[in-house]
């Protein structure tokens, strides 16, 4: 079971209409090679789950600019004017989610939980359409799990079994997304032999990773 595949082979799995989680925070920790491959392949009608839509020339932002995104679940679009334009023009559906709630919903999806109660968003429009539950006299919103067909992950280092190590603030959403999708494709800047990553230093266990694509250093 060799998990290392060519970019082309990995891209075969990405189809029109899919729900795709993409790691990164303003492009930091986003697998750019996979993104570029998706653009070249020309998939469309995607639902993207990502912290933000980055910048027009960076990461998730490029998918938006290339009009491949039908729906996006994200916490911030302010750095990519094209997302706002498409939203106002009714071309792309934008669902804004508080960042902590977004992260927790993804974790919740991967962890097999049915939902969680958060104080975030109480008394704001984020409440709309959600159940409110009172615990010990404090109100919480019931937020539901998020899952995806595919998660695109950027790792600093991978071993051949898919154990991943991230670097600095490029970690962000990657570890939780790697647990919440049916198929997980990791773009790794460096691929090492099994055993070269200390089991105590693994940040995403290889059991979550289906395919590894060699990224640019």
């Amino acid at each position, binding site marked *: 079971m060799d998990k290392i595949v060519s970019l082309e082979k990995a891209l075969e799995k990405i189809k029109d209409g899919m729900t795709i989680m993409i790691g990164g925070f303003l492009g*930091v920790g986003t697998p750019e090679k996979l993104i570029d491959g998706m653009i070249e392949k020309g998939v469309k009608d995607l639902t993207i789950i990502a912290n933000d839509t980055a910048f027009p020339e960076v990461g998730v932002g490029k998918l938006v600019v290339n009009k491949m995104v039908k729906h996006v679940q994200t*916490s911030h679009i302010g750095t990519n004017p094209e997302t*706002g334009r498409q939203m106002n023009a009714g071309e792309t559906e934008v669902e804004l989610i508080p*960042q*902590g709630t977004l992260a927790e919903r993804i974790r919740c999806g991967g962890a097999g939980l049915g939902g969680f109660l958060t*104080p*975030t968003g109480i008394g704001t429009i984020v409440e709309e359409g959600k159940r409110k539950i009172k615990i010990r006299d404090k109100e919480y919103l019931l937020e539901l799990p998020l899952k995806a067909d595919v998660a695109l992950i950027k790792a600093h280092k991978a071993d051949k079994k898919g154990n991943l190590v991230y670097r*600095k*603030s*490029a970690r962000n959403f990657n570890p939780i997304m790697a647990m919440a999708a049916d198929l997980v494709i990791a773009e790794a800047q460096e691929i090492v032999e099994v055993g070269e990553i200390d089991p105590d230093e693994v940040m995403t266990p290889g059991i979550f990773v289906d395919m590894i694509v060699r990224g640019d250093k």
Partner: protein
Amino acid sequence: MDKNKKRELIVKRIAKELKDGDIVNLGIGMPTMVANYVNEGKEIIFQSENGFVGLGPRPEKGQEDSDLTNAGGQPVTIIPGGAFFDSATSFAIIRGGHVDVTVLGALQVDEKGNLANWMIPGKLVPGMGGAMDLTVGAKKVIIAMEHTSKKGDPKILKKCTLPLTAKEEVDLIVTEMGVIEVTDKGLVLKEINPAFTVEEVQKKTEAELIIPDDLKEMVVD
């Protein structure tokens, strides 16, 4: 006062508010500048919601690391003793009350401590990012903003008209005119910039200000 002087005054005053050992998250824009004015004797640990504690100053030119930015996407450094973590943990820290102080900008604040700072319907919808979690989760929420809008309209209102970021979570408002505390009784003007009179501050504030007997001068170094 020109814009830069105003901002400098605001962030310098807020820096005085931070206590030795505090874990602090600074919002994008003016709040970020607070870090530049922390008194040398105090050890403040800055949290960055994109996944670390120990946020350090901007690196020297040429020393930038593309894997290390603040929540605004700008290159930064991490101090010795800092630590990285994922986004779920980052917000467990924020929501869980492990951040002592957050400093955020505002479009509007009102006398109940309601905050609006994430959207102007039909005009500007950047998204809330981490602001809703920070406002709800941090032990103390400090607003850093100019006292009025560009047009000179009050931003401290009886009731926010823009969509809220969080309900009744603001603790302190620092502007170039003074320092205002949100209390159960209403907004208390704790300190005033001696360049203004109480009447002038009230005139630029829609909400009614409570003026305590021990009103102090807003002093920075």
